[in-house]
């Protein structure tokens, strides 16, 4: 058994060596740039780690950024207004909030579609009627839906980071990417040609530039809890909010996980001593 373990360890070590050598060689060989040009920066999220939880104040601010800025182009059609109770709003507040939106319903008895105020069970109404309309209004690029965006974007971690990520429990690729993208717009460096109507952003996952203009600017959203009204803060808040939108059961998951693992460890310890006692009866 010991030999098997040491064998496995040396295997992992050698594989590691081979891969780091490989990664190195790759850096040197490739002239064509790999996107994104810059890896996302890591943010210290409240929902990271084994006891991670959402900061409700931050989610509320993020919601405000989403509804006042992003929602003009980006739908979020898997999140219902009732889900906003997770953010600390009461049922009444959710009803009021939903009432600000009009949704199409019907057909009524006369066979006509009609508009009515949204209720808790409605999802956020989409800003465009269909993807074609969205593309037409946005220079040909459809603004992606936001319900899952925080889980649908992950910049490749590369070796050896992808191994370390297991131990550091790194699962915040999505919000890190969104935050880096939102705060990462800059002037294209001299000599870089980018397609017309796009904006240079070295954090963009699919190329040097994207069709979305920098959406955030200082003071564009008014916060009523005293949080700084900066691009940095807006970006963090909306990234956290999008993580919640994509993974609403994260807190429940991590809390249950802790209990499950503690149970398994206690049970495993008891089993270990039982097994030891039983096997001590014989030579093995």
């Amino acid at each position, binding site marked *: 058994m010991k030999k098997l373990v040491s064998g496995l360890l040396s295997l992992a070590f050698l594989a590691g060596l081979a891969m780091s050598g490989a990664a190195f060689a790759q850096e040197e060989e490739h002239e064509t740039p790999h996107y994104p040009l810059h890896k996302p920066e890591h943010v210290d999220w409240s929902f990271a780690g084994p006891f991670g939880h959402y900061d409700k104040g931050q989610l509320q601010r993020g919601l405000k950024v989403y509804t006042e800025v992003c929602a003009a182009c980006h739908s979020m059609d898997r999140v219902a207004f009732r889900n906003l109770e997770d953010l600390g709003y009461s049922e009444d507040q959710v009803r009021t909030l939903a009432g600000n939106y009009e949704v199409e319903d019907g057909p009524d008895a006369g066979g006509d579609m009609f508009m009515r105020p949204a209720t808790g069970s409605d999802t956020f109404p989409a800003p465009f009627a269909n993807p074609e309309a969205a593309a037409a209004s946005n220079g040909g690029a459809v603004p992606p839906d936001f319900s899952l965006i925080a889980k649908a974007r992950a910049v490749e971690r590369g070796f050896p980071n992808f191994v370390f990520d*297991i131990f550091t429990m790194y699962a915040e690729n999505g919000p890190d990417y969104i935050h880096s993208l939102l705060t990462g717009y800059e002037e294209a460096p001299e000599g870089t040609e980018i397609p017309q109507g796009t904006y240079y952003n070295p954090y963009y996952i699919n190329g040097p530039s994207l069709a979305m203009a920098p959406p955030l600017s200082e003071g564009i959203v008014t916060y009523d809890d005293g949080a700084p009204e900066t691009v940095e803060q807006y970006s963090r808040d909306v990234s956290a909010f999008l993580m919640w939108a994509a993974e609403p059961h994260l807190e429940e998951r991590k809390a249950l996980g802790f209990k499950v693992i503690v149970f398994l460890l206690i049970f495993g310890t008891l089993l270990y001593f039982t097994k030891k006692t039983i096997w001590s009866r014989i030579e093995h």
Partner: protein
Amino acid sequence: MSGDHSTYVPSSGVGKWVDSRLPLPRLMHDSFVSYPVPRNLNYAYTFGGILMVMLVVQILTGVVLAMHYAASTQMAFDSVEKIMRDVNSGWLLRYMHANGASFFFIAVYIHIFRGLYYGSYKAPREILWILGVVILLLMMATAFMGYVLPWGQMSFWGATVITGFFTAFPVIGEPLQQLLLGGFAVDNPTLNRFFSLHYLLPFMIAGVVILHVWALHVTGQTNPTGVDVKTKTDTVAFTPYATLKDALAMVVFFVFFAYFIFYIPNYLGHADNYIQANPLVTPSHIVPEWYFLPFYAILRAITFNIGPIDSKLGGVLAMFGSIAVLFFLPWLDTSRVRSAVYRPWYKVFFWVFAINAVFLGWLGSRPAEGWYVTASQLSTLYYFAFFLIIMPLLGMIETPRRVPNSISEAVLSRKNGGSGQPAAAVSAPEDRA
């Protein structure tokens, strides 16, 4: 080891009544209580039991998920998101099922490598081994079709790429692919038949597992020495000894499993699968799930034509061949010594093979360009050479170390500090078969 170890004595009247009509309790008792196992099994031998539990976990979570899933291209992605958001504990079921597939493969690969190391495929266990390879193939088909069901971008494009392999075969290729897809491209009929088969195959796996365990109980387990069980002192009863050891290993395995489910549930998945399938947008980089990566690397390593076989067909044949070769393993290994413990050279080649397999997996995740191609070709070469050249030749030229006379001798010599001699004296000659 088969046959006469039945110690089952029904104690109640009902027990006797059942036993004389359908001795199922006796079968269970003889298989999981009194069944003799070698006393020197290490933890590498616990993965068979772990795999059985993983199959049950996958079937149970899968059956409940199927109650909420809709196999239609219009609804599949939405129904999965409904499970994640609105179904009670749906997120838990889905993460268990998705990560369960990965952990199923982790366990099965360890199980297979254990078999390779200790020569578990050698006579008289050829059928046992072949049934295992059949299970592996069924698992791969099941996992592949399961990955298509959420109807994300990787589901769709993975299915497109993999079913495209079949077009490589001359004449029958295209009709075969169309039969598989139910049309000319991956679409609603494909999703429907994949769902149907994804539900069916696990039960076929369960059936083959029964045969696998049956074959195991006829020949008995191998053990790290590779020496056959000769006397009663070589074995211990399955319960409590193996039961407790397996249970402990299972709980430790479940700690890792839980860690992934609860803390990094999307680590082993691909972010693109959270984007709904779109036949008009091809992802920049299509990769299969991690457990297929070594075979994917072998597929892409064949970039050259071999006579009438073009590179595409060559790649597909190499990929299928990399599994098919396992069927012939019992006859490819010519060594008379079973366990790698006593084969100094085989041990080295084995570990190089293991590293090579991991390396192939990593290459499979890289784009097929630059030096990766050459590395894939060299790695693929070693993969096949290990089975087709090293195994047959090594058995003839290698000088194995002295194999102990019995399991008991090996166990006692280890206890007594390594020298085999005193233990050999202890083991009674009349006990030897």
